[in-house]
């Protein structure tokens, strides 16, 4: 077996671990679905039915974020349960282990958000399913970026609850300063210019906009938007990979993270 095959095997095992936490999955899915239902029943009547169509791609993106963030929880657990030390005895380089975790986070995000997208398509008719398929690699890169951020926070958290604090703070920040729940016009009307710009270039905003425009509105894929999505996601993946690599190196030197 080549080292690359071993890397994929580690990624697959970690990926499967995400779906083994059935209670966590149940909570995640119920939260995502309740977001959609509450929006459909309440917000749709209070604001307008179009708001529901606007929000559904946002909820799919948040689902991707939540699933990819779970990578951090798994990394933290692996450090606590000693699985990391076990991995370090396998014939695979440290960098390979890091990449495996990031890939697994990417897969988790894409698979989970794709499932939400399929559920959402019963409520909001997608205009272009082919575009949804073409978007998958870009969503995967975004998910690896989020997984990277989660890996970074898991690496610097000494205790599990600290990791959750970081993860929640990240979610609040990234979701608030974004165009997931509100349009760019609304954001620029109420928030200062620099923050509105950050919201525009927030990778979650870019993903939600790509889903809205290309999948649910049937427009052509916007290459500039997709380039921006890659350009903002890849550094996050690199940051997380570096942080996780540093923690493994520290483990080799000090015997503990």
């Amino acid at each position, binding site marked *: *077996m080549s*080292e690359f095959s*071993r890397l994929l*095997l580690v990624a697959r*095992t970690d990926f499967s*671990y995400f779906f*083994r*936490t059935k209670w966590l999955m149940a909570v995640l899915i119920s939260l995502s679905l309740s977001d959609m239902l509450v929006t459909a029943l309440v917000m749709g009547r209070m604001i307008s039915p179009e708001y529901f169509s606007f929000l559904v791609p946002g909820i799919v993106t948040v689902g991707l974020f939540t699933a990819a963030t779970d990578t951090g929880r798994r990394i933290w*657990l692996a450090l606590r*349960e*000693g*699985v990391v*030390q*076990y991995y*370090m*005895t*396998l*014939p*695979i*380089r440290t960098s390979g282990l890091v990449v495996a975790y990031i890939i697994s986070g990417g897969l988790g995000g894409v698979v989970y958000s794709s499932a939400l997208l399929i559920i959402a398509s019963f409520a909001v008719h997608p205009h272009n399913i082919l575009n949804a398929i073409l978007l998958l690699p870009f969503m995967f890169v975004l998910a690896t970026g989020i997984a990277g951020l989660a890996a970074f926070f898991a690496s610097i958290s000494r205790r599990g609850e600290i990791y959750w604090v970081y993860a929640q703070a990240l979610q609040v920040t990234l979701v608030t300063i974004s165009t997931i729940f509100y349009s760019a016009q609304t954001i620029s009307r109420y928030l200062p210019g620099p923050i509105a710009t950050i919201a525009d270039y927030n990778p979650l905003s870019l993903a939600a906009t790509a889903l809205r425009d290309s999948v649910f509105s049937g427009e052509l894929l916007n290459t500039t938007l997709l380039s921006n999505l890659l350009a903002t996601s890849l550094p996050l993946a690199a940051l997380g990979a570096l942080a996780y690599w540093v923690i493994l190196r520290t*483990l*080799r*030197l*000090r*015997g503990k993270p």
Partner: protein
Amino acid sequence: MFAVETLSLSKRYGKTDALRELNFTVDEGEIMVILGPNGSGKTTLLMILCTILKPTSGTAKVMGIDVVEEGTKVREVMGIAFQEARGFWRHKPSSILRFHASMFDIDSMKRQDLIEQTMKDLELWESRDKKFMHLSGGQAKRLETAKVLVQRPKLAIFDEPTSQVDLRGKRKIWDKIRELRDQGSTVIVATNEVREAEYLADRVTILHQGHLVVRDSIPKLKDAIAGGDVVEVGFEGPVTDNLVAELKGLGGALALSPEGNELRAKVSRAEDWVPKMTSASYNLGAKISSIKITEPSLDDVFIHFTGKALIDQQ
């Protein structure tokens, strides 16, 4: 070529020296038991050999491969059963073993049979559908051993393989470790359990406070203790001064304590002294009714070489 060779190997955690200038070798195809109390540096040495830890200074080679320079290659030929069982909490034992076997290229045609047989041998088959987190301490420990048995590496390392395992389970694990050696693997076992060391060791290395104190086969280590063998001889009549003087003249006995019809002797090598003693007694007409020989234990060996008891050190 040695299966394992370290040169001036040191590991320091902050201000604590876990290993100090360790020169250590293991021959191919032997079971080397590393004996020492907790904190003696056993686990640190094993962690360096399996590339989890980087030494502070010195070198370590496994099958001639440097553990720092070529860690991935070392990991291809080495397998370790950790002191604390490591597993994915929500995975089942069979899937943990399948993953491990896949990582080490165990033939996919033979993999399932090998896993099933190993699980049956270690009495894990009944627990195959339990999640790792629901296994008892002993079961988790046996699963840890099973990983290495399925892998059959060139160098197999077991860190306290039978802690938390019941007596019957211990014997099974020991037999499987010996079987692994008989199949060609080199084995290192770290333990602080004397019985385990006596059962398994081709040679023993005693580590104490990060130093290698002594390394040899168990009989030679025991023989190295002057007066370590205790011989209790029963005679049909009282032990005479004449007999004691004659036995003193034989040499080899550090102390002779006659009391009534019995004589207690402390000798270095009972197998050499007893024939001479029986011959001398016969010549003097002293009839022997019983002979009892007690060898020193490995704990005695440890006390002899370190000045401290192995058990007191825990």
